[in-house]
């Protein structure tokens, strides 16, 4: 193995500027969380709780500080494209990169194929550019806050070190995902975060259903990953690279690769050839002719399947609600702020490709809109704090995909950015509520917490305001941008309008259910569980959450009752369960502090993307991302863009209406009428209500359509293998045994008989070899001439002869040493047989050699060979 020293050179002069691939700060940003994970994973028990969180927080915190440094360096590294002056000028692609070195070589990971005979060497290369730079700040920044929070939240957990090890591992993988310069290195991060997510969802693994939830997440993600793999394979084959920058060059600058990706005949021809009989099925070939698929489109679609898995879109969203089994900081960091946005991140990364495939974009927009609406409808009736937030996350991710799908990748990413803050803040707030209220999260049992948990109340309120799109909060700006761009969709106006109205409807529902959640949790009387406790007597206390710990089978479980986890391992340390919740104590202080930071960001982050309609210029973030993230408006005429800008105010009106309507409705239902209209509605439309509570029974559907048939098939195969395939084998064995029985008398078991048999056999062999002589000729060139050697056996005598070969002229000249000619030649030889086994001859033209070998019994055999003149080397 190569020496590892010098993996990272770290020089202070490299802080702000560095040569290509030499910006080692990036290496440390990635490496530190891994070191943290290793320290806590191996020595967690030894270094004590304090050591654990110091190691973990300082790893991620330092990584965050270095990220700021990297970001500043990025800003300084290239000249800003500079507002309107940059028109027509080429975008400056700002990027800093780093390749760790092994000894004196750059770390080359492996060569991956880009075609039958070509491959591309993939390095372990990290790149920070505007897109990854922003994401880097979000991941390490929010990550650091959540690490601090976790020190409070997990303070009573037995597996403290394991938790932080996993959390650090997650950050490490996520950094690979965003900084990796190729699809494959990104995939390492992509699956790595999947692993961290699996481990963290099932963190309290003694609860089977939690562990099931983790496994479900991993497997559903793997379905997406298979799509991603296939997409990568196509992109590499037709687009010629795995690296994002090279791919961009190929798509934008190479007619060959662009043609291969966008040709309308190649894929159709392939399908017709590859799938036997596809041409005989009329409707299928008609369908293929109609959609006229391209390789590039297929690749984009397959990559999107991967995004659907990771970012919980229809139809692969089912794992995310169950993922709430994990500790709440995990839900905030992984399942709201960072990992689940990886799909959008990938689309933005490859936006230069996606803009060319509008059909795929339409599919993405519709999937996003449908998911937004679908998940919002479920969130309306859920009563668990984290469940509502989970479905809300799915719904918001749908919004982001809507943005990408209408070609406004920057808008989608802007929503990633703002969502990270307000959703993380809400999850952490929910965690604070649970921590303070003995792990209760049923909102019908809470209420009135505003009085007790002032900090949580305030920050949760700000985040709620942001997510529902209250004007001037961050959510307002980012959601508005998406809705506007949907309405102004330049390539499929029809789809754009449909998506817009679906988006407005989803926004309205969001506004309603988030206000409902906020009102039921923090306003009004309560908390109600305290009154119940008082009525039941204190003995009931902390155990009451086991009531819904229900039986389950392998799958299809709904992960009910995530409000509870194993008491043994994760007590929140409440001595008196009937005491009102409070924010006192070091745990709560550690937890509430990050909330304020996040709430402030949730409030203010939107100003990085003020709408064009207000300022008549591009927002700061979109401008910053320009050149890195493509947009369908690029290269369109000024009229089109102007027309689009005219739609900004109408679009904003829709967003505003949905905000005020949802808010007003929730206020009327839950504050003015104390929830009565909701109960009435649930009663009068109980079918729909039950369906919504049961989450549209999607899990049950999957169970019936996918899981059970697959299990059935597996069981069938296991049986088939045992009885049919192995049955045939055993049957053949039995037949052989039957023959064996016939021959059995031969097998006496007497060693003499076997010995005699062996002796007879050996004798026969010797007899054969002596009675029937065997000889062969070999020829080797040497300085003196060609050495011809005959190999026979002991006691052989040889007679040599040389003669001319027969020449046949077919397609080529062939020289043949025939047997009759050999016999003729031998007859002419008068010399007696000798034991001469070797001769040296000079060969100038093709000749034949023959040797007659005679053994001790006088039997003879002939050996011939053709001798050709030595060819010059």
């Amino acid at each position, binding site marked *: *193995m*190569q020496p590892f020293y010098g993996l990272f050179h770290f020089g202070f002069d490299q802080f702000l500027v560095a040569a290509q691939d030499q910006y080692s700060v990036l290496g440390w940003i990635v490496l530190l969380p891994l070191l943290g994970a290793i320290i806590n994973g191996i020595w967690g028990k030894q270094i004590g709780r304090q050591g654990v969180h110091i190691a973990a927080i300082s790893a991620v915190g330092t990584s965050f500080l270095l990220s700021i440094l990297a970001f500043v360096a990025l800003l300084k590294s290239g000249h800003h494209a500079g507002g309107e002056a940059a028109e027509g000028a080429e975008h400056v692609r700002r990027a800093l990169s780093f390749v760790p070195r092994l000894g004196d070589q750059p770390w080359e990971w*492996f*060569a*991956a*194929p*880009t075609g*039958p*005979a070509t*491959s591309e060497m993939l390095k372990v290369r990290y790149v920070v550019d505007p897109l990854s730079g922003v994401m880097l700040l979000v991941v390490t920044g929010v990550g650091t806050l959540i690490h601090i929070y976790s020190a409070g939240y997990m303070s009573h957990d037995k597996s403290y070190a394991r938790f932080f090890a996993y959390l650090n591992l997650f950050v490490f993988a996520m950094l690979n995902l965003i900084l990796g310069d190729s699809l*494959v290195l990104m995939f*390492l991060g992509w*699956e*790595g975060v999947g*692993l961290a997510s*699996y481990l963290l969802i*099932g963190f309290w*693994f*003694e609860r*089977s259903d939690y*562990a099931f939830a983790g*496994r479900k997440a991993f497997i559903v993600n*793997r*379905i997406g*990953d*298979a799509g991603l793999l*296939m997409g990568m*394979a196509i992109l*590499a084959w037709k687009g010629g690279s795995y690296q994002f920058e090279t791919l961009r060059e190929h798509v934008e600058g190479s007619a060959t690769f662009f043609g291969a990706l966008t040709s309308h005949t190649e894929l159709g021809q392939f399908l*017709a050839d590859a*799938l036997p009989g596809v041409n005989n099925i009329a409707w299928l070939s008609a369908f293929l002719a109609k959609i006229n698929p391209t390789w590039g489109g297929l690749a984009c679609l397959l990559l999107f399947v991967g995004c659907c898995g990771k970012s919980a879109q229809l139809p692969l969203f089912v794992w995310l609600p169950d993922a709430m089994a994990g500790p709440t900081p995990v839900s905030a960091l992984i399942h709201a702020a960072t990992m689940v946005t990886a799909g959008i991140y990938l689309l933005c990364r490859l936006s230069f490709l996606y803009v060319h495939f509008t059909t795929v974009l339409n599919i993405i927009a519709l999937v996003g809109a449908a998911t937004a609406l679908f998940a919002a409808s479920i969130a309306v009736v859920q009563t668990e704090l984290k469940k509502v937030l989970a479905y809300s996350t799915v719904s918001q991710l749908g919004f982001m995909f809507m943005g990408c799908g209408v070609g406004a990748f920057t808008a989608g990413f802007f929503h990633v950015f703002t969502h990270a803050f307000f959703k993380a803040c809400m999850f952490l707030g929910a965690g604070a509520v649970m921590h303070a209220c003995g792990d209760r999260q049923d909102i019908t049992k809470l209420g009135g917490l505003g009085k007790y948990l002032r900090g949580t109340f305030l920050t949760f309120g700000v985040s709620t305001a942001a997510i529902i799109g209250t004007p001037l909060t961050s959510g307002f700006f980012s959601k508005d941008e998406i809705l506007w761009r949907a309405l102004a969709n330049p390539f499929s106006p029809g789809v754009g309008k449909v998506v817009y109205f679906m988006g407005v409807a989803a926004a309205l529902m969001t506004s309603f259910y988030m206000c409902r959640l906020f009102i039921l949790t923090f306003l009004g009387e309560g908390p109600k569980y305290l009154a119940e406790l008082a009525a039941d007597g204190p003995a009931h206390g902390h155990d009451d959450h086991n009531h819904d710990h229900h039986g389950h089978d392998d799958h299809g479980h709904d992960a009910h009752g995530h409000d509870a986890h194993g008491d043994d391992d994760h007590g929140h340390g409440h001595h008196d369960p009937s005491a009102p919740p409070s924010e006192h104590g070091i745990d709560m202080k550690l937890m509430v502090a990050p909330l304020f930071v996040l709430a402030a960001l949730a409030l203010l982050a939107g100003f990085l993307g003020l709408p064009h309609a207000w300022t008549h210029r591009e927002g700061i973030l979109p401008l910053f991302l320009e050149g890195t993230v493509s947009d369908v408006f690029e290269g369109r005429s000024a009229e089109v863009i102007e027309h689009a800008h005219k739609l900004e105010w109408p679009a904003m009106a829709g967003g505003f209406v949905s905000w005020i309507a949802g808010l007003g409705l929730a206020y009327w239902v839950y504050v003015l009428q104390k929830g009565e209209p909701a109960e009435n509605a649930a009663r009068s439309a109980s079918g729909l209500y039950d369906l919504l509570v049961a989450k549209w029974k999607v899990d049950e559907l999957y169970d019936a359509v996918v899981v059970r048939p*697959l*299990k059935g098939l*597996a*069981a069938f*195969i*296991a049986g088939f293998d045992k009885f049919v*395939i192995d049955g045939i*084998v055993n049957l053949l*064995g039995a037949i*052989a045994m039957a023959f064996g029985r016939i021959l059995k008398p031969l097998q006496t078991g007497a060693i003499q008989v076997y010995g005699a048999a062996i002796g007879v056999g050996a004798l026969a062999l010797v007899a054969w070899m002596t009675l029937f002589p065997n*000889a*062969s*000729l*070999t020829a*080797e060139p040497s300085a003196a001439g060609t050495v011809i050697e005959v*190999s*026979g056996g002991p006691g052989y005598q040889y007679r040599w002869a040389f003669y001319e070969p027969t020449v046949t002229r077919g397609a*080529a000249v*062939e*020289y*043949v040493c025939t*047997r009759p000619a050999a016999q003729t030649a031998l007859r002419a030889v008068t010399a007696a047989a000798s034991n001469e086994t070797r001769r040296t001859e000079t*060969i100038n033209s093709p000749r034949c050699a023959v040797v007659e070998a005679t053994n001790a019994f006088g039997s003879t055999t002939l050996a*011939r*060979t*053709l001798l*050709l003149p*030595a*060819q010059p080397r």
Partner: protein
Amino acid sequence: MNTGRHLLSVLVWLPALAGLLALFLPRQSPKLLRAYGVAASLFIFGQSLQLLNGTGEAGAASGFRLVENVEWIPSLGIRYHLAVDGISLWLVLLTTFLTPITLYVSFGAIRNRQKEFIAAMLILEAAMIGCFFALDMFLFYVFYEMTLVPMFLIIGVFGGKNSVYAAVKFFLYTFLGSVFMLLAILYMVMQYKTLTGHYSFGYLDLMRLGFPIGTERILFAAFTIAFAVKVPMWPVHTWLPDAHTEAPTGGSMILAAIMLKLGTYGILRFSLGLFPLAAHWIGPTIALLAVVGIVYGALAAWRQYDFKRLVAYSSVSHLGFVMLGLIGRTDSSVSGAMLQMINHGISTGALFLLVGVIYDRRHTRDVAEFGGLAKIMPWYATVFVAVTMSSIGLPGTNGFIGEFLVITGSFSSSLLRWSYRCSSGGDCDLAQIGPLFSLIAATGVILGAIYMLDVVQKVFFGPATNPKNDHLPDLNRREWAGLAPLLFMIFAMGLFPNYFRSRMDPTVHDFLVVYNAKMDALRDPGGARTRAVMLEEAVIRAPSAAAPAAAEPHAALPLRREALLAQGD
């Protein structure tokens, strides 16, 4: 020890000698025996590392190195011909790497007849190494059959209660398969004799033979059936679960990690190397069987209750990947298949070792007996999950690189095309169908996660319900010593695969160049060839391999060039 020019012989015969010597050690001192076994196999491993000398640099020889080529039975043209190249190098190192580990961990469970066990393992090692080095078909066949005997004893003597059935099944299955191979070898030697006037069992000689397409297909089938049984390919795989369940831990490890690779190695070296046209003709079918194996093995593994059967079926699935990569016949897919062979050796070896850990403690392999072990044996659970990740191909572990290269490599393979639409042995300019196979193989990625995580869940998670498990000790020092090198390799190969690939890729590349050249030379669209022909020496020499290979005695026979002797006169 400086083994000088006879390194390969030393590597073959040293384990055999050490194995025989073990039989003469006193049975009364088990400590001495154990120390002897481990020390001997470690010494052999150390010697085998010399194989790496001079590899990996730019311009290093891709062809056969360290050649030992002397006459053995001259009248039959049988030679003692050993050599190593980038294809056999890693398989040999895998063998020498795993043998000490296997021996060491086996002493935990094997208390009786340790002496015989050590002897059998070391002789088995010798035979396997011999298989990978042999370039004479007769020598190869001898080694190939020689592997059966010690493995038969390991399963039959040291195995479980149904071990005789399993051992006999293993023996007959693989032996019957290889009988046809022997016949095919003899036929080829006869043909060679007819064409040149003398016998040769040399691989490089027989490689120059070109047959009529029908004959080539029959010969290909004879070789491939023998190797397919060994791999094992679907549907001739059923000996494997039985052999694994009955074998002791060490036997399972060696069986899965190395003996199965004799099959895949044979397919690459001999089936593809000797019969390119037939392989091309049947290629899509083999690819189909390979992907069926991937899916079938994974689904069958999911429904197993016996831990070892589960791992056995997972081997069927993993080796489907190897076969797909080999038959993809691109540089990347074959290189991926080679890596996957090594990966499978390491990961599955580790899995069997891990199964052995709880088997030693509980004497059951029934998955249902366990549950919640993560709490009782946390380090065991951690290592198990790490190995699981390697087995399901998580990036960063070795499993990923192999699977990825096989999937993407066979995806763009230009040689996988439906042959039923081609003229016999001729060209066919039809669509590449690699993507179809690679798509099915990609579902194996999902199914792999399903069955492995399912068993992880059943064994490690949930409440610890079975009181018998309550006091199981975590990994002991012996087990750690066995697992640590395997874990190291899992990550080393996942993060630095280039170290390994740069030492095999040139050979793989040249192998495929020769493969294609031979296929071109033999192409016979109308099926006009009615008798065997000898190909130009140059055809089977890759351009970059020409220089070093010319030093071999066998290469220096330009006089035979174009020699065509009449048949049957």
